[in-house]
């Protein structure tokens, strides 16, 4: 049908012509001797169905297609406004289902189609050197060999990530930097936002390029886009470097989800990491870098892999190494090869499947809800058909209603998805890591959501349309029984029960998770994070202190902090329990052991190197013996405080531990001077672990955390401590945060589980509501006559409700019961993620049951009221 901008002829004109015809014809008939009224009737009859002809005129394209659509929409809108509960249920369900699909699709779209915001990203690949060890690791000398000898790439760049201390304008703080090869920006084909970017010609051997590039976002947040920043000298780990330019806007390094604040020359590695590991090729201590580059035009991936493998084979022959031989694969950039790529892709694909199933379930539920609506409108639809509306017209009416609902829901869902993604982009789950989730919805996402909405509308409208077309208008008007009797079909009943079971399962699981989370917030960790401040103090790499100066400076720092009257205790530790730095344990042996192979160990103990005062600062109870003391220094015998579990494992009991000795793997004898309470070290859900606390003065470490306890608010203490520390060394970079904030990392899995299960539970509940609502509403609509008769024969509301809602309620009880049971059984699985997750909790059980009851109540509210509102008199008059 042609889309006309202007209709050629008005409908009124056409109508006038038809009337003129009737006039002319009746005049002719009168002339032939017919009576006035008879002539007119006969004339009318020759024309046939006037409405029908005009209808054909509308549809012949005189009426603009847009106008027809608009009329359909207006009609649909009027229909929807007349049924608010149906509209609300349908729109909400679709909004959630389509929104979920849009969010997941946007993430997949970002990861697969736009991994990096760089020009010609399609030909950009990272090199994954080994099939098993899935990260992108090759040593720097090997990288140089690949860079110089390959014939497949338009340049190969290298990158690695590290944390350094930045001092600028009298303020020092740790920042994350991406160490990059000189050709990095040229290989990625990037242009500076300001100044210039690093070039291959900036490199003149190791520690030769005193230039750095600042990221656009850090330039914005830290320097408020001050143009004078370009050309400024800042100090990284005390080495002066010049900021030569600003990286392009939106570019946040080569690893998605992690946005470094600076790009620094890889050749200057020694300045940033304290040691030059760039010359090491095979050793474990070598710096491993990732390689990235554009495949040359016309070069196939297979040919590039063969090219790289040939170079790799030469390297493997010349320099035997611990690693497996090179066997390359090319991967999309952004997710550090398969290392992150495989889990992220797998996770997103699973989510997309889940979202698609949710949408499918939503469509099924809405189909029965919609069918109920069509049943209610049988009479109206039959009238329309009788008055000349064709099948196509009725189909369009019903479908435009379904599609309108779907588009409304889809629009709201998409809006929600956009907001959620915007929130995610600003989300900083861990303050000490510059995590960013740069997922932007693009045209593909909008198109996806729109097509889903249209598809969903057509899908759930289809059943209703088919039903309406099957019905016989004549029968409907005569007896109101046009639609063949249909029970809630067996399959659909099972589907609904399955949905309810899944919903109840999720609701129970989320209650268990939330309860567990609440418990773990109040749990006994063996230390008290509330009221303590953590300050990251890195004296060696970031500040350049070495050897004997380290303990002296640490002592001075501690003394100056302790001199503040607001500070009740302060201590240093090289590692903190439940932090985010991974495991730190080593084997220990009994005092008399001579065989010190790891297989003969008495225990694998978590090690903390601490300064005296740690137990007060952490509020870990000391149960026996003494704390470590200042006198336990390098010249004194080696001593340790151990925890209860350690004492139990090595010495049998707590009381016997003090004064006993044990051995470390290098044979050092250590005497136990005290026993501290057990705690959690690596995760909230772990079983008691042996742990030992060694004096920092006997085992010096420069990178430490300072633990400051004070009854004052953390912000105030933080300021006082920072100024004290700056007084000692203005260039020392610090990062301070309340211990409870740092603990977020430990609680993150539990939080995530609670939130994810909560979202899934809510979605399940919404689906269940529409499912039950649909089934119940359909049952009531179908059995109106029967219910009316029952009422007329004296049935009470109880009987009516039982007759109308019984089947739906039975499905509800069956499904929800199964789900609750399953939820209680699987809650044990949650115990691996959430601390003290237990289903044996009356509150959880009561909460889950209450939630399901609420679901049932909301879902049956409207149908129940409609069933009770049936007026037998009116029904009788209607038929």
């Amino acid at each position, binding site marked *: 049908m042609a889309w006309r901008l202007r209709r050629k002829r008005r409908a009124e004109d056409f109508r006038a*012509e038809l009337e003129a015809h009737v006039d*002319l014809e009746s005049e002719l008939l009168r002339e032939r001797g017919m009576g006035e009224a008879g002539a007119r009737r006969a004339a009318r009859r020759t024309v046939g169905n006037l409405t029908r002809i005009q209808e054909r*005129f509308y549809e*012949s394209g005189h009426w603009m297609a847009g106008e027809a659509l608009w009329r359909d929409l207006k009609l649909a809108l009027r229909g929807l406004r007349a049924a608010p509960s149906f509209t609300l249920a349908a729109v909400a369900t679709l909004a959630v289902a389509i929104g979920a699909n849009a969010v997941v699709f946007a993430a997949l779209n970002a990861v697969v189609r736009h991994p990096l915001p760089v020009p010609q990203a399609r030909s950009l690949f990272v090199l994954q050197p080994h099939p098993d060890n899935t990260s992108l690791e090759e040593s720097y000398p090997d990288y140089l060999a690949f860079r110089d000898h390959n014939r497949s790439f338009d340049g190969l760049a290298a990158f690695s990530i590290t944390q350094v201390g930045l001092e600028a304008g009298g303020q020092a703080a740790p920042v994350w930097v991406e160490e990059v090869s000189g050709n990095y920006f040229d290989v990625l084909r990037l242009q500076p936002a300001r100044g210039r970017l690093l070039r291959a010609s900036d490199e003149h051997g190791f520690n030769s390029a005193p230039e750095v590039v600042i990221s656009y976002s850090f330039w914005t947040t830290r320097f408020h886009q001050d143009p004078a920043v370009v050309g400024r000298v800042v100090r990284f780990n005390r080495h002066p470097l010049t900021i030569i330019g600003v990286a392009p806007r939106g570019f946040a390094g080569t690893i998605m989800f992690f946005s470094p604040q600076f790009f620094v020359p890889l050749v200057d590695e020694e300045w940033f990491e304290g040691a030059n590991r760039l010359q090491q090729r095979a050793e474990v201590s070598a710096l491993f870098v990732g390689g990235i580059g554009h495949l040359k035009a016309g070069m196939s991936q297979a040919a590039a892999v063969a090219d790289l493998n040939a170079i790799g084979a030469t390297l493997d022959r010349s320099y035997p190494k611990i690693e497996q031989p090179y066997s390359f694969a090319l991967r999309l950039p952004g997710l550090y090869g398969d290392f992150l790529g495989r889990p992220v892709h797998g996770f997103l694909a699973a989510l997309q499947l889940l979202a698609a199933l949710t949408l499918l379930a939503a469509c099924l539920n809405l189909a029965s809800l919609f069918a109920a609506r069509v049943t209610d409108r049988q009479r109206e639809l039959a009238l329309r058909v009788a008055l000349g509306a064709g099948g196509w017209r009725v189909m369009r009416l019903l479908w435009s209603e379904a599609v309108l609902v779907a588009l409304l829901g889809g629009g709201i869902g998409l809006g929600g998805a956009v907001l959620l993604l915007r929130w995610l982009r600003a989300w900083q789950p861990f303050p000490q890591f510059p995590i960013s989730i740069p997922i932007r919805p693009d045209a593909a996402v909008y198109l996806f959501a729109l097509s889903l909405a249209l598809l969903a509308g057509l899908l759930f409208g289809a059943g209703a349309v088919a039903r309406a077309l099957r019905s016989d208008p004549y029968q409907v008007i005569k007896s109101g029984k046009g639609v063949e009797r249909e029970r809630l079909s067996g399959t659909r009943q099972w589907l609904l029960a399955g949905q309810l079971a899944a919903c109840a399962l999720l609701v129970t699981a989320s209650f268990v998770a939330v309860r567990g989370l609440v418990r773990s917030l109040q749990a006994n960790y063996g230390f008290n994070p509330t009221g303590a401040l953590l300050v990251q103090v890195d004296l060696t790499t970031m500040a350049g202190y070495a050897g004997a100066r380290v303990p002296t400076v640490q002592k001075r720092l501690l003394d100056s902090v302790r001199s503040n009257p607001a500070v009740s205790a302060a201590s240093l530790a090289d590692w903190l329990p439940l932090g985010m730095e991974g495991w730190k344990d080593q084997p220990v042996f009994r005092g008399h052991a001579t065989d010190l192979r790891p297989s003969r160990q008495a225990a694998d103990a978590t090690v903390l190197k601490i300064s005296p005062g740690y137990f007060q600062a952490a509020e870990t109870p000391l149960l026996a013996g003494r704390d470590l003391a200042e006198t336990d220094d390098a010249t004194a015998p080696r001593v340790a405080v151990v925890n209860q579990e350690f004492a139990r494992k090595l010495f049998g009991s707590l009381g016997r531990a003090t004064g006993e000795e044990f051995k470390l793997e290098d044979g050092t004898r250590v005497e136990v001077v005290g026993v501290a309470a057990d705690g959690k070290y690596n995760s909230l859900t772990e079983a008691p672990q042996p742990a030992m606390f060694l004096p920092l003065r006997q085992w010096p470490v420069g990178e430490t955390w300072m633990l400051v306890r004070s009854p004052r608010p953390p912000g105030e203490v933080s300021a006082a401590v920072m100024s004290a520390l700056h007084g000692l060394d203005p260039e020392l970079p610090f990062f301070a945060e309340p211990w409870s904030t740092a603990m977020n990392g430990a609680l993150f899995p539990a939080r995530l589980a609670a939130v994810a299960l909560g979202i899934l539970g809510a979605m399940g509940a919404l689906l269940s509501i529409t499912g039950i609502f649909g089934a119940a509403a359909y049952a009531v609509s179908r059995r109106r006559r029967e219910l009316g008769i029952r009422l007329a024969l004296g049935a009470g509301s109880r009987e009516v409700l039982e007759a109308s809602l019984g089947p739906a309620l039975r499905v509800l009880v069956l499904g929800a019961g199964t789900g609750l049971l399953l939820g209680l059984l699987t809650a044990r699985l949650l115990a691996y993620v959430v601390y003290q997750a237990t289903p044996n909790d009356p509150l959880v059980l009561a909460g889950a049951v209450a939630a399901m009851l609420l679901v049932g109540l909301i879902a049956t509210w409207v149908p129940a009221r409609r069933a009770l509102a049936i007026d037998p008199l009116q029904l009788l008059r209607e038929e």
Partner: protein
Amino acid sequence: MITQPEKLELLQGTLDLLVLRTLILGEQHGQGIARAIQQTSGQELLVEHGALYPALQRLEDRGWVAARWGLSQNNRRARFYGLTAKGRKRLAEETTKWRRLSGAIGRVLEAGGE
């Protein structure tokens, strides 16, 4: 609707041809066209008047006829249709086509009758 079974129903697509043929005699309104077809066919062809108007509209859309409002012999307002140049050409084509078709059908029927 009661129909007179002895009258012939129009073949699909032949209404256009008949309308064009009728208009070659000069401008005419819808009712006049209907009556003219009925009369010239010796009352053999049944034109459902209702079907005529959408057909006229179709012809107008294709540019084969042009329409204007005017007055009938009895001074009644009516919409008059006239043949355009394009319409004349079309009529010639359609007529040839129809003659060939009916001739062919006739030959087949006669052959079958022997």
